[in-house]
């Protein structure tokens, strides 16, 4: 499943730290202080997860344009110009759309697959067989954060 996503999870963790755990710290000032730090750090992480990719892409584009103008300036040593040219020329491949777009895409595609499954009553139909194989691989892709990341007691 797509939801709850990172943003929903972090919002809930912050709320638990501030409204359930911190009040229970009682007179332990250090524990209460740590709760405040945890909540504020998580607020930062929440926004960072949302914004960092776009922000860094924009930042790199601006810096690339700035550096691309350098070779035309006199007085810059050749080794620096070579370093600049190498850095400017080596841009990462744009691989993935934004997460929100991917999530919307996934909902459309998965909804379509539900309709296909409902329309093909024969479980042995090659499309149904292929769908089941795909569903197994979907679970494998999520395994790292949905299962393996959890260690120790949960409650």
């Amino acid at each position: 499943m797509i939801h709850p996503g990172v943003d929903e999870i972090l919002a809930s963790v912050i709320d638990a730290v501030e409204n359930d755990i911190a009040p229970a710290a009682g007179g332990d000032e250090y524990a209460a202080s740590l709760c405040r730090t945890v909540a504020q750090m998580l607020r930062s992480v929440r926004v960072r997860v949302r914004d960092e990719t776009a922000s860094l892409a924009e930042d790199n584009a601006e810096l690339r344009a700035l550096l691309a103008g350098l070779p035309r300036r006199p007085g810059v040593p050749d080794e620096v110009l070579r370093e600049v040219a190498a850095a400017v020329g080596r841009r990462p491949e744009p691989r993935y759309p934004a997460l929100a777009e991917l999530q919307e895409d996934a909902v459309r595609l998965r909804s379509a697959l539900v309709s296909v499954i409902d329309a093909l009553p024969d479980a042995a139909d090659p499309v149904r067989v292929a769908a089941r194989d795909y569903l197994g691989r979907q679970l494998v892709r999520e395994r790292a954060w949905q299962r393996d990341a959890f260690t120790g007691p949960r409650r």
Partner: protein
Amino acid sequence: MTARLEDADFVGRWFRHRMTRLGPEVADVRMHDVRRLSRGVSRQTWSVIGSVLGGDGRWSEREYIVRRDHEGGSIIPTSLRTEYEVYRRLNGSAVPTADVLWYEDEPGWAPDGREAYVRAKVPGDWLLPFIADDDPELDEARVAASKEHLDKLALVHTLDWEALGFGEVFAVPPSPAECAETLIGSVLSRLAEFQFEPSPLLAECVAWLRDAAPRDCPRVTLCKGTNGHGEEVWSDGRIVAMSDWELAVLGDPAYDFAQVQEMIPEIHRNGRRVWGLPEALAYHRERTGIEITVRRVEFYRRFYGVLQFLYCHHAAALVHRKEAAPLRFVWTAAEVGYHSRLRLAGVLGIDPLQEAPA
């Protein structure tokens, strides 16, 4: 007026207002301790302790339980009122349960503005420390506890549910043969009320379950749902109250055997079967006359993946609608939700976690 459940003064006024529900002889009440209990995730369970003045002029200590939804709702998508109605119908029957005292939905008295119900606390313990211990010296005790649990399940399964009005609470299968299909249909109807993400895995699994649905159930019974170790109250080797009816339905009693927690231990000694599912089913048949096959129990074990998906998706839907949802809802929606999908995959023979051979 402060109407918070944490506020013992308010709770004292509330219980005094409802004093007649505590018993006809009760002349006064003083509540002095209110605390939230940690067991249970789906709903909130609170303990209220105080003293009541009886008709004999003496004060005695009593403990009550308050049940209500979390502020954001409940994880299991059945209403609090349904839970209350199950208890209300069972009170006075052969099935041991805590007595429910009243359902509070009056504005001004419902704590924190949320509906709640109050029931008596039944003294006892949910913990049976020996039940999972494979020490042969404990075999006798483990089998005896298992039989006690089966005796109580037999009471549930032979209850006259029609006379007690359970047909007004749950979907009624048109015939015993249609128990499985009715259950699948009612769960999907419930899911459709809040589903916000498509699940091809569920669609595949439901198609499989419909094909495999057993039609040889001989009788429609009340089924408890979640049952076994951790769900019932024990005292002196006996179950004195059956708790947690959130997944109760009308259907095939095999549904309950698929959800027994630890109370049917598989015991083998010196190459001989001492106890296990076949023996438990035979014991249950002697008491109820109801034939339950291992095959039907296996079907409902697979079906449990759909139930788990249902409540995990319900938690996810509540999280999705709310800013800063309760953390336990989020955890249920995330990790438990993933495990529900693994269970659904298992129904289809998919084991995505199997390591590829080296």
